[in-house]
């Protein structure tokens, strides 16, 4: 069974460059890689209690994209809606890929943009896996 919509919830943190990469990777998925299958959930809107966002995350599978160990996106979804289907931690991915020069929170370097694109592909792989497992 394929799953029509998957929610992608990105970190909205400003405290580290991984937050910037999380948001840009999520935008790449929404705009270029999976525009028809992806719904993004606005984390600040979600956390103030907007019912539509919370209901979506209860009924559809979600992927949390977090910049740092605080994992705010994952914790918010699991606190207010349901367990996330997948969770990606950008700081772990950067360590795994031995990435050094991604730029600043305000402006990514060319390498930073390439890494955001690589994170976006990880999101797409997670979406395909969820879809193949019927939403699990």
């Amino acid at each position, binding site marked *: 069974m394929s799953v029509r919509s998957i929610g992608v919830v990105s970190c909205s943190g400003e405290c580290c460059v991984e937050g910037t990469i999380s948001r*840009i990777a999520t*935008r*790449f998925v929404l*705009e270029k890689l999976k525009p028809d299958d992806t719904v993004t959930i*606005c984390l*600040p*809107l979600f*956390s*103030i209690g*907007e019912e539509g966002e919370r209901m979506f995350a209860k009924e559809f599978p979600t992927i949390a994209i977090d910049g740092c160990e*605080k994992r*705010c996106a994952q*914790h*918010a979804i699991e*606190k207010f809606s349901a367990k996330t289907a997948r969770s990606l931690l950008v700081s772990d991915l950067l360590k795994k890929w031995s990435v050094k020069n991604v730029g600043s929170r305000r402006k990514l370097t060319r390498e930073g943009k390439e890494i955001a694109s690589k994170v976006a592909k990880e999101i797409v792989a997670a979406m395909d896996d969820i879809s193949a497992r019927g939403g699990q």
Partner: protein
Amino acid sequence: MGDEDAKRLVKSHGCIAIDGCPNECAKKNLELSGAKLVANFRVVDILRQNRNLKPKEITFLDRDGRELAQIVAEKVAEKVNELNCKGVVL
């Protein structure tokens, strides 16, 4: 999401909320956290005051988007100066 350090920071310092849209999530999140909200801005209002600007791109801002960001930053900086003059602890 209830991070104690963040909650302590917003309670002990004056906070300025900068919201993109009329939902005002930053302001409401601060209010829910018991923060000391000293000012708030809505980018949508500042965009209305600058109708010559038509930012279109979301992922990477275009020229109009960057210009609008600069205007918002200047307004926030002006507010910070004003609050400093009044002795508000930021």
